[in-house]
């Protein structure tokens, strides 16, 4: 005799288990992974005490640098498939090339090249958590310094 209520409970429970297991261990397929790369270009300076409210989500991270004001200059995101790369143009004639390398264990390895015109300024490979970010800063800009926040999120 069928026990639909009990079977439904079991089906729901095991579906939940499977779903969470898949989410935890990640549905990593390095070559087919699409990663959304998002950058925020920020002007940090001591010219005033203004804090751009659009940066509220990363306020604590920015204040590590102990500048008095922070202003969001631009925010841009791109979906990158596999190991392709994406180029973001930055203020001051600069550009940032980001190329996701591999995604594993809920982390993304990003190869990041900062250029001024065609001249390489910084090359780095950073491994960060899915949805996490890191800060890259220092190039001078408009009386302050340019600070970049770079995120990577699996799609």
């Amino acid at each position, binding site marked *: 005799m069928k026990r639909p209520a009990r079977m439904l409970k079991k089906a729901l429970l095991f579906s939940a288990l499977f779903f969470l297991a898949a*989410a935890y261990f990640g549905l990593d397929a390095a070559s087919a992974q699409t990663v959304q790369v998002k950058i925020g270009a920020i002007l940090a300076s001591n010219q005033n005490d203004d804090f751009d409210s659009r940066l509220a989500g990363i306020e604590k991270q920015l204040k590590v640098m102990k500048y008095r004001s922070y202003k969001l200059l631009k925010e841009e995101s791109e979906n990158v498939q596999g190991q392709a790369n994406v180029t973001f143009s930055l203020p001051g004639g600069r550009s940032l090339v980001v190329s996701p390398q591999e995604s594993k264990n809920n982390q993304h390895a990003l190869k990041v090249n900062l250029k001024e015109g065609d001249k390489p300024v910084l090359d780095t490979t*950073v491994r960060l958590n899915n949805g996490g970010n890191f800060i890259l800063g*220092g190039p001078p800009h408009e009386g302050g310094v340019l600070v970049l926040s770079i995120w990577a999120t699996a799609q």
Partner: protein
Amino acid sequence: MKNCESIQESLGAWLDGELKQADAEAMRLHVDGCPACTDAQKKLLKLNVAMKAAHAPAGEIAFEPFWLGVRTRIEEKRSWTTDWAEWLRSMIAPPSLAWAVPAVIVLLLAIFSYDNFLPGRGQRNNFAAVESIDAHGRSVALLREDETKTTVIWLYQNPEGDNEATSENAKKGPTF
């Protein structure tokens, strides 16, 4: 009209007098006209008779000794450990355990996969590892701030200066 399998599932309830009148009447009509269900009914009746006979009457038990046993329990002081052990035993009895185990697994996976569903929200786990770095001759600093778990890569200005003109304030760089 229901098939015989469905009818026979309700035979026991019919013989126990638990069906509604309309259903009981429909059952009777079907069984009267169906040899297979009539046979099933007879087997069930035999089983019921055998079970009643197998359960021999308990015989009367004297009340006074029984009440004495209950009263003794009421009057003795049980330690809290006995009560706790009883409660714990009922919690870990097999049927509860059968559901407790997958429930604990689901809970643990939910905790560990929190970041999957709310990526970036949990600043507490904003770990980033710098695997390689080349500043092309410039000074670079790498630091992690513990409270926000923020990784910062800081490029210092080249003192020989082929960067754009800077203000006095910017030259100082950040004070971490």
